[in-house]
């Protein structure tokens, strides 16, 4: 990656000042203009006040990770200037309201009061930044109109005036900040964050039932699905609690509606008994786990990867599961889609693990070819049914053809108690043993479909980064930076963390001179999993657990000195 061709924009201020609106509009404008983006949203668990930021790293080439160093700071409060002073370079610019009375070397004082009235301040700020970046004024105006034109037609005129005035003023007064290089033409791209992509992946997979209890950072998945429910013909229900949400989803799935729930640590803790129910009754369910720092309520709006072991071991007893951990927004889409097929095929719980960073990070993505992502069909075709029908019939693969209740005269019976092949409660201990084995057998089939980890770079690298989930982009970016300095670096990234298939990656681990595991938790949960499953001990680590996402700079700063 050409590192000079990216600009990192940070809009900072209090909650309620509209920085997410400005950031969203600017992101959209950048994507439509052909640029790549990586958004990192940092906010506090409050509705008003505090200090929040909306960061956009942008450039002409693909951008995989956020960046700490700031090129363009839009400071809506003086506090923003103080907080970020250390991240500004000599070429950086800080856009401030002239009325803020701020003084800093990088300050660019904008007389907002002369350019816009109070209602259109944010649009004026957008005009200033757009001009600094060299974006087309008409394109910005179009996006502003799309967002506010319908809802607030009365503001259309003053918004337009504010935009033009601020754009023109900036053109006349900026002599320092160098605009973005011209972007290539890229038609039809989409802008979305991880949660949008999860919701779309579910929709493509044919989700018909979604129940939830709001919890950051997973909430917007449900908001998306609810907004499409009528059009797409699905039922979305805000349940009385997470226990109800997942039990409803399992009930719906048993009756034939592909079903999903999404939550975060504390909410998932409430769902755990039902994870086991899904395993026992062999009922498909997709569970999205948007991680945030814990224990307990933790840091509700920050990011972490500390629930890996929790998810791996969630639910009492032994039963198979699959755990996907998307590394990009695109992976959020296709791994969620895949999760539905895996859940239906192997009849049990399947997880998609994201985190606040991935959930909220907007990116430009190529449009999805939906013909490649067919919807799942719940239940088995009649050709597969042997009579007398028994819901939990023993089979070679461990998978028993699943009929849906009410669709034939065959009765569909299942039980959270240990059961016989026909689903009825049993204390026959020989049946118990066979049932345990039947359920666990499905793991073999799952392993045949495990998404292999992605090795980028040579097999015998001097330094191999190992990562999982949302850290993918930062690891790739850090490796590129080190390679640019002449180092021999490779990356091994896992987008599925269970079941693991050691043959897929052990040679890569063994071939590298140094292996460093990069993960967002304090105890090295993924490194521990690798050791448990392969015996290979990763001795060096980069870990982060202060609530912020792992950035390329963070990785490079924290690579341990050579042993």
């Amino acid at each position, binding site marked *: 990656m050409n590192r000079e061709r990216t600009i990192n924009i940070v809009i900072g201020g209090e909650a309620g000042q509209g920085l997410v609106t400005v950031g969203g509009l600017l992101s959209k404008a950048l994507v439509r203009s052909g640029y790549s983006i990586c958004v990192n949203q940092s906010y506090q668990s409050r509705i008003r006040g505090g200090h929040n930021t909306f960061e956009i790293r942008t450039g002409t080439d693909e951008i995989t990770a956020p960046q700490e160093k700031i090129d363009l700071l839009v400071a809506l409060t003086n506090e923003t200037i103080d907080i970020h002073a250390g991240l500004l370079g000599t070429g950086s610019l800080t856009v401030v309201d002239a009325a803020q009375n701020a003084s800093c070397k990088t300050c660019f004082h904008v007389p907002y009061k002369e350019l816009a009235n109070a209602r259109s301040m944010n649009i004026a700020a957008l005009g200033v930044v757009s001009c600094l970046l060299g974006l087309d004024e008409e394109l910005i105006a179009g996006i502003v109109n799309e967002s506010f034109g319908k809802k607030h037609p009365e503001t259309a005129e003053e918004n337009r005036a504010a935009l033009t005035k601020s754009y023109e003023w900036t053109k006349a007064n900026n002599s320092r900040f160098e605009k973005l290089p011209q972007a290539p033409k890229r038609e039809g791209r989409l802008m979305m964050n991880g949660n949008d992509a999860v919701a779309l992946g579910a929709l493509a997979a044919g989700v*018909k039932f979604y129940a939830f209890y709001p919890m950051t950072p997973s909430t917007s998945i449900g908001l998306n699905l609810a907004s499409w429910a009528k059009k797409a*013909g699905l039922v979305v229900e805000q349940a009385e609690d997470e226990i109800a949400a997942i039990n409803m989803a399992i*009930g719906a799935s048993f009756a034939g509606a592909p*079903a999903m729930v999404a939550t975060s640590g504390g909410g998932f803790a409430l769902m755990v008994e039902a994870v086991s129910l899904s395993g026992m009754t062999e009922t498909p369910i997709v569970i999205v786990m948007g991680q945030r720092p814990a224990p307990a309520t933790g840091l509700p709006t920050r990011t972490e990867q500390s629930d890996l072991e929790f998810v791996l071991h969630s639910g009492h007893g032994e039963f198979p599961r699959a755990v996907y951990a998307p590394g990009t927004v695109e992976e959020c889409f296709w791994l969620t889609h895949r999760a539905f097929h895996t859940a239906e095929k192997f009849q049990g719980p399947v997880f998609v693990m994201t985190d606040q960073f991935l959930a909220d990070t907007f990116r430009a993505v190529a449009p999805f070819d939906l013909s490649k992502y067919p919807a799942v069909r719940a239940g088995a075709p009649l050709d597969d049914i042997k009579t007398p029908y028994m819901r939990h019939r023993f089979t070679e693969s461990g998978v028993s053809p699943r009929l849906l*209740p009410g669709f034939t005269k065959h009765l569909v019976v*299942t039980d959270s108690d240990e059961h016989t092949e026909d689903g009825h409660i049993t204390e026959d201990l020989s049946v118990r043993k066979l049932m345990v084995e039947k359920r666990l057998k499905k793991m073999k089939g799952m392993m045949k479909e495990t998404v292999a980890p992605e090795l980028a770079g040579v097999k015998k690298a001097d330094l191999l980064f190992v990562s999982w989930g949302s850290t993918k982009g930062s690891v790739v970016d850090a490796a590129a930076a080190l390679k640019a300095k002449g180092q021999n670096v490779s990356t091994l990234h896992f987008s599925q963390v269970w079941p693991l298939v050691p043959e897929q990656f052990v040679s890569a681990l063994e071939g590298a001179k140094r292996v460093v595991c990069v993960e967002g938790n304090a105890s090295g949960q993924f490194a521990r999993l690798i050791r448990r499953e392969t015996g290979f001990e990763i001795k060096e680590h980069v870990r982060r657990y202060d609530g912020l996402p792992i950035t390329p700079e963070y990785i490079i700063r924290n690579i341990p000195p050579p042993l």
Partner: protein
Amino acid sequence: MIYPTQPPLTKGRRKSMVTLNDYGQYETAWCPGCGNFQLLKAVKQALVASNLEPHQVLFVSGIGQAAKAPHYLNANFFNGLHGRSLPAATGAKLANPNLKVIAESGDGCNYGEGGNHFISAIRRNIDITVIVHDNQVYGLTKGQASPTSEHGFTTKAQPSGYPSETFNPIGIAVAMHASFVARGFTGMTDHLAEIIRQAIAHKGFSLVDVLQPCVTFNKTNTFAWYKKRCYELPKDHDPANWDAAMKTAYEWGEKIPLGLIYKCDKPTFEDNFEVLKSGSLVGADTPIETLNEIIKQYR
């Protein structure tokens, strides 16, 4: 590959009437003399009287001796977690409104562990029937107090007497304008069967709280105790009269009223969902054009 499609649920579709034989006879795990036997009999009678075939019915239950009841008849059956029969039943009903969904479990399951779901199911007015085996004690775990145990009721777990007040499910349900609230007694099987039949026929949430003795663990509220107190509501009791129903709901002690206590007609939860008007959610693929239309908003 041929996937089954569902025949619409219409009464009297089958030429021959459904009989008790359709629902089978099974050996149970219950104590001799348990009220569950009469309750099971009443449920079967109600299903036959409703002319429902076994495959048209889905039982959902939680955990407890009561929750085992659906194992002892022929029907579709999802035996889920303790306290969670109502959410699972709600999900199943929404996925396929053509199913007759009956949640059957005990007082501990519905009013203790699942209390939040009980209240929420009433608020939703989801079209399911809830049959609660209410013997005022925990049977499966061998004799602890239940939410409906009487204050002062002594058990090994409450040796100084049950310290809480008794939960009144009928009172809560009527107070919340649940759309069908009834009480039965296993000592009056035909009466109970008729109440259950009406509950199944009712469109909306229907509660049938069934008083029954636990011959092993409840030596206070015995068969004779109930028999002495239970009486059928007089013919002039108007279940549409909420004030009268509230009064009836709090009648307990020397006299315990049985029958349909409160009933009102109102839209069901399913009525809120356009998509359910055309049938079930099962196998209804969203057209690719619709998906593309939705994706467009991300341009």
